[in-house]
């Protein structure tokens, strides 16, 4: 009850005119920043941070958090319409969102994305409201051994992504791991596989890689299809009404949205994980246990719902350790932390005590921002959905421009563009050869985290592998891993 009364007092702060205006501005900016590939929430928040120095701290953080949150909505728009994730948290959304758009269901995909983002975000915020300190403490329990075991379990999800040709999927995953090794050693920062090219010391950048593999490769494919005239008259009318989900479709998206909402919140509190990992795992979980898992990847609402609910929930999850312990749960919250310090606030165990108005005002503002962003997202659906009617001949240069600008923006240098071009050629070759891209990207994200945490665990244990068995949480995940590996194998042997 006390929590609720504090939340309501937070609403009185959040609903002040200045703060509402800041929320609205932040939500708009977040949608735009999210929809533009290459400019993610981290860049958007970091670039706008100096503008807010003259604001009241509460107003400033409300605006920045609205940007961060709305970015998760916006990232799905270009993912669905152009097959180019607007943010690294929308990569998996492309797998079903874009196929839906190609089938003439762009409006439904966008509607599903908005609703699922709202549901996932609301779940995350409710958990944040009532359990923020407990969530943060749970996150603290995950050290290197625990994260290693968890990531080993996550890596097995690659098996659910490799599709109908396991060997090609495996090759794709291994390619992702190889690409991830380029750069600096995560434990001692020594350069490796960088061929004495300074640019490669920072590794392959994820955003240009994704833009290339998805967007630029698609552009190359479209070049080959530029003479094909699509019969637009056969496309379903892209009206607002046609974008609504039917009752049956609502029933289909709710379970994945709810599951991913909880999963995304938990992933968000884990150190080093964020919206992108949540997006991956939400999708993979649905592919593993969802009712419509056989059709995922072909353009089904469940795929969009699972991915989008998870990344929005992760925003709330990432705020839990930030507000309760002063520990950022993601790259964007790390920037927010810098901003909080500049405004003279000290996020940490005493924030809710010493700056109660600020903390609860922020949490309350997230609820309002969620509603506002949903409303804006729904209103612009018809406009966005009409992008699906753009002729291929015009779509090619549009996608090209977006790819180049997005890749350049992500790194502020030509390195991003070159990476994007090479990744585009790679993605096209993979498409032609029938090698799925999703395992490569999943491995590219998870493998470095696994390596880093495993090596840290060995540093902590002075080389002894027993550390993974001695930590209860780690042991639990290892046992879970063993069960998930052994049981199917035993079943297969018995069937023979």
């Amino acid at each position: 009850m006390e929590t609720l009364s504090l939340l309501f007092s937070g609403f009185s702060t959040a609903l002040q005119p200045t703060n509402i205006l800041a929320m609205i501005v932040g939500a708009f900016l977040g949608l735009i920043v999210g929809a533009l590939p290459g400019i993610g929430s981290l860049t958007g928040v970091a670039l706008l941070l100096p503008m807010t120095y003259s604001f009241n701290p509460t107003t400033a953080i409300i605006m920045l958090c609205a940007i961060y949150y709305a970015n998760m909505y916006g990232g799905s728009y270009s993912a669905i319409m152009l097959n180019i994730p607007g943010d690294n948290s929308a990569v998996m959304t492309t797998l079903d969102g874009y196929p839906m758009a190609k089938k003439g269901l762009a409006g439904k995909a966008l509607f599903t994305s908005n609703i699922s983002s709202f549901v996932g975000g609301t779940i995350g915020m409710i958990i944040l409201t009532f359990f923020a300190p407990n969530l943060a403490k749970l996150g603290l329990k995950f050290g290197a051994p625990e994260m290693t075991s968890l990531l080993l379990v996550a890596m097995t999800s690659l098996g659910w992504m490799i599709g109908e040709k396991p060997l090609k999927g495996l090759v794709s995953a291994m390619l992702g791991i190889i690409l991830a090794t380029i750069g600096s050693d995560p434990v001692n920062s020594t350069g490796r596989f960088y061929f004495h090219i300074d640019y490669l010391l920072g590794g392959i950048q994820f955003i240009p890689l994704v833009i290339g593999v998805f967007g630029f490769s698609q552009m190359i494919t479209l070049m080959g299809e530029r003479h094909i005239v699509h019969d637009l008259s056969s496309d379903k009318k892209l009206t607002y009404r046609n974008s609504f989900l039917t009752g049956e479709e609502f029933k289909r998206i709710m379970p994945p949205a709810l599951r991913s909402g909880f999963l995304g919140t938990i992933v968000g509190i884990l150190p080093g994980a964020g919206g992108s990992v949540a997006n991956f795992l939400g999708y993979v979980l649905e592919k593993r246990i969802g009712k419509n898992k056989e059709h995922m990847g072909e353009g089904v609402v469940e795929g969009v719902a699972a991915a989008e609910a998870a990344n929005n929930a992760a925003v709330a999850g990432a705020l839990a350790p930030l507000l309760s312990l002063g520990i950022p749960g993601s790259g964007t919250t790390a920037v927010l932390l810098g901003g909080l310090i500049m405004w003279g606030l000290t996020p940490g165990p005493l924030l809710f005590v010493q700056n109660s108005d600020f903390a609860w005002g922020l949490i309350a503002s997230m609820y309002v921002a969620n509603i506002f962003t949903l409303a804006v997202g729904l209103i612009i659906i018809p406009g966005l959905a009409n992008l699906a009617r753009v002729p291929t001949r015009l779509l090619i240069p549009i996608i090209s421009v977006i790819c180049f600008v997005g890749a350049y923006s992500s790194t502020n240098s030509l390195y991003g563009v070159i990476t994007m071009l090479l990744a585009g050629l790679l993605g096209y070759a993979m498409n032609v050869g029938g090698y799925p891209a999703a395992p490569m990207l999943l491995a590219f994200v998870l493998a470095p985290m696994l390596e880093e945490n495993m090596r840290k665990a060995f540093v902590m244990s002075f080389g002894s592998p027993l550390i993974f068995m001695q930590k209860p949480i780690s042991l639990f995940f290892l046992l879970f891993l063993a069960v998930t590996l052994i049981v199917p194998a035993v079943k297969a042997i018995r069937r023979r």
Partner: protein
Amino acid sequence: MSKNKKLVSVCALMLALVMCLTACGGGTQQSSTPTSSASASSAPASSAPASSAPESTEPEAFTPAKTVNIIANAKAGTNIDIHARTVMETLKSIDEFAATGANVLVTNQEDGNGAVAQRNVAGLAAGEEADNTLLTLNVGDLAAMLENTDMTVDSFKILGVTVQDKHMIYVRADSPFQTFNDIVEAVKTQKLVIAGGKGDEVMFGSMVKAVIDQNGNLNYLQTSGNNDTAVQVLGGHVDVGIGKPSVLNAYMESGDVRTIAVEGDVRFDGLYADVPTLVELGYGDISYIQCRAFCASPNMSDAAIQYWSDMLAKVCDSDYFVENYVIKNQSSLGYMDAATATEYFLSAQENTLAVLG
């Protein structure tokens, strides 16, 4: 009609090409492509043409160009970026600088973990660009630079140091170690893990290990930064942490951690008033103070070096800088002019090379 459509498509493609060219032209450095960086790496970047020029008795008066570029070799929002932007704002508020009409920009170039920005600045030829381009350089950057590239401190002209961040050694509140000496004693017989971030903290941690660990019982766990270190300590995953006051304040106030030693010979005040310094404890050898400095091309003119060195002094004297950076981050003002800063960085380079082996 079809011709018009073709024309539209061609125009769209041309637009894309123009944007690409614009992006190509956006670089301000000579060696901004990977191939040119690869070829540049085969040629030592530490050439110092200035050393072959006859020494001038007095530098000519220098006036900054219309646009001064401060390059932060890290992402926007990081401490390096915040430091650079605060210096930028402070410069604009200094009357002498404002009177020149010059504008200051901060550009983020984090490619190659900052190595590309370093290479680009080191390669600037003498001229207006070299005289008006500053690069952030921290002592903590030396390890990666020396290990992974052929650049050294001599590849740059060090303009000055603005602030110094001292390291603190801390433990979780319920730790059995009450003092730093407890850790020194314990490490003789027990295996302990000390965590810290990258760069300067690695060096500091290496010094701690070198001084107190004769039996190989102390491992250094490199984390992704101060916040990650705090996670490791608060979660009980490591025994000791190395951190900075700006991160530790909240946990000290809440009583979740205890700081048991501070680098240097001067105690902090406030929350840390009772925390002894390493010098007081007899471990003055353990010192790798993080200095935040600015550097420039080795071809920067003497007049420009003097000018920027003086400007940095004025920045450090400015209330704006003190209030908006030093106090908020609990750094220490530690201005060094160009000559002193160069000596300090060369000394730090020697220490770093000794640790790297």
